[in-house]
């Protein structure tokens, strides 16, 4: 009986359990690719020898990032987690990857970044209206992104127009 129930449970749960980590891992990989792509299209006023990517807040797909990245050009990208209220975000980071943040946190991070040439990417910000320059739209099939042009204009980093053209404007799916 127990064996039967275990078997049934296994049958019922195994696909879901097995599928979820695989899907998340694949999506994480895709997120990593998109982040690398965005990084490759961005220019800083002073190009750092090694990019500092700071991951802030609770993230779902950033695990792949944390192991470190290497750009096509050979430049290493150092990834580290930072606290939301870290006042050094603007000075020590070239790019920030924001997890799921509330409006307050988002503003706080925005304050910390203002005045510094820092690229900001949000993992979950469907409106993409406040703070972040790039907002990821992560779906099972593929990872798209939107661009907040105001934020891009204010940020102090230059973004290649090709990427801007590619982005979904505002709430466009």
């Amino acid at each position, binding site marked *: 009986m127990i064996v039967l129930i275990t078997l049934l449970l296994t049958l019922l749960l195994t696909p879901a359990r097995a599928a979820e980590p695989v899907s998340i891992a694949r999506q994480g990989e*895709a997120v990593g*690719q*998109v982040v690398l*792509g965005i990084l*490759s*299209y961005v220019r800083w006023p002073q190009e750092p020898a090694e990019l500092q990517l700071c991951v802030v807040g609770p993230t779902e797909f950033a695990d792949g990032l944390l192991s470190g990245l290497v*750009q*096509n*050009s*050979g430049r290493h990208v150092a990834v580290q987690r930072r606290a939301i209220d870290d006042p050094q975000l603007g000075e020590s980071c070239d790019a920030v990857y924001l997890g799921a943040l509330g409006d307050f946190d988002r503003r706080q991070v925005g304050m910390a970044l203002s005045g510094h040439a820092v690229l900001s990417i949000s993992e979950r910000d469907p409106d993409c209206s406040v703070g972040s320059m790039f907002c990821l739209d992560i779906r099972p099939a*593929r*990872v*798209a*992104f939107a661009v907040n042009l105001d934020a891009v204009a204010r940020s102090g980093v230059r973004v*290649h127009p*090709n*990427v801007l*053209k*590619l982005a979904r404007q505002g709430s466009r799916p």
Partner: protein
Amino acid sequence: MNVPRTPARRRPSLRRLLYRAHLGVALAAVSLAGLAVVAVGVLTLRVYAEHNLRLIGRSMAYTVEAAVVFNDATAAAEALGLIASREEVARATLYDRNGGVLADWQRSGSGFEHDATQWLLGPESVLPIVRDGATLGEIHLRGSGGRLLSFLLTGLGGMLACLLLIALGAFYLSHRVVERIIGPLDRLADVAQAVRRDREFSHRVPAAHIAELDELGGNFNALLDELESWQTRLVSENASLAHRANHDSLTHLPNRSFFEGRLSRALRDVAGREEKAALLFIDTDHFKTINDRFGHAAGDAVLVAIATRISGQLRESDLVARLGGDEFAVLLAPLSDDAIAVRIADDIIASMAVPISLPAGGSVTASLTIGIALYPQHGPTPEALLHSADSAMYEAKRQARGERRLAVCGDNEQDKETSDVVETL
């Protein structure tokens, strides 16, 4: 003389030969040149088309680069279609770095154009999308040969038009050349035919425009000159030979054979017209004595003098001949009256009364005995008539030399009457 010739239809005329040669050369030249131009044009256009395709590819690579980086198939397809639809592209396929198809764009078009394009443009063009030294993917491009095809068709059409024009031009030029060649040849043939058919040597070939034909005409004219002089010489030699064959070289009078021919012809004519004629047989008296006494030169001089004097007594239509030795014969035809024959014989005898000067000096008087035979009374044929005259002459000689005597024929009543008439004169 006539060499058997193959039928004329098997031999092409010079005109046709020239037309054909001209047309052939012109068409071959235009075809070769046209094909060469089209081939070079196609090759050049192909090179340019390839180059153009690479440029399009590079432009596409630049445009779709971001889309490939972010693996955005929709954006890639949009960017690909945007460029490909405006350019000479038949198909554009975008592969990502793993070889998967990210976007594919294909122009809708006719199958024929597609096939022709494949043949003309060759394999597709492959361009890698490189960013920061890494290959992100590849663009595979296949060009659309619409422009190449239209060039090819236009080129071929132009070549055909040129061929037509050239054919007309060749025809016209051939016509001119043929006129210049055939014209003189025709005139040459005309002259040759006139010479052959009519022995007309006075015609000459006119000057021709082409040097070789002019030379040919000149040589032909020179040949005609030679032929003409040969012909003239031949005719005169023939005449002199005929004269020599028919005439006595000493007195230049006709000889016996010529006289006999003329006699039989004259008798035929006279008989046909129912006229009369007379034959005088003349013998020189004592010619042997003159020869013996004064020599052969004197004898010859006497014979010449006798010939001259006999000729002097004759009418325009009469004929005197030397039959041989010291014998002469005279044909009096036509004769209106028998008495005229007797009177002419008397005149001849009388003309000998004047002495003949001899070349060695001195002179001699010769006399003639004449036998007269009348036609048709004294003989119906030339032989009979000659015989009658001969007999009459011998009869006269027996009686008295230096006389004339009319032939007699015992059976003929008319003969007696004629004798009577003559005796009364």
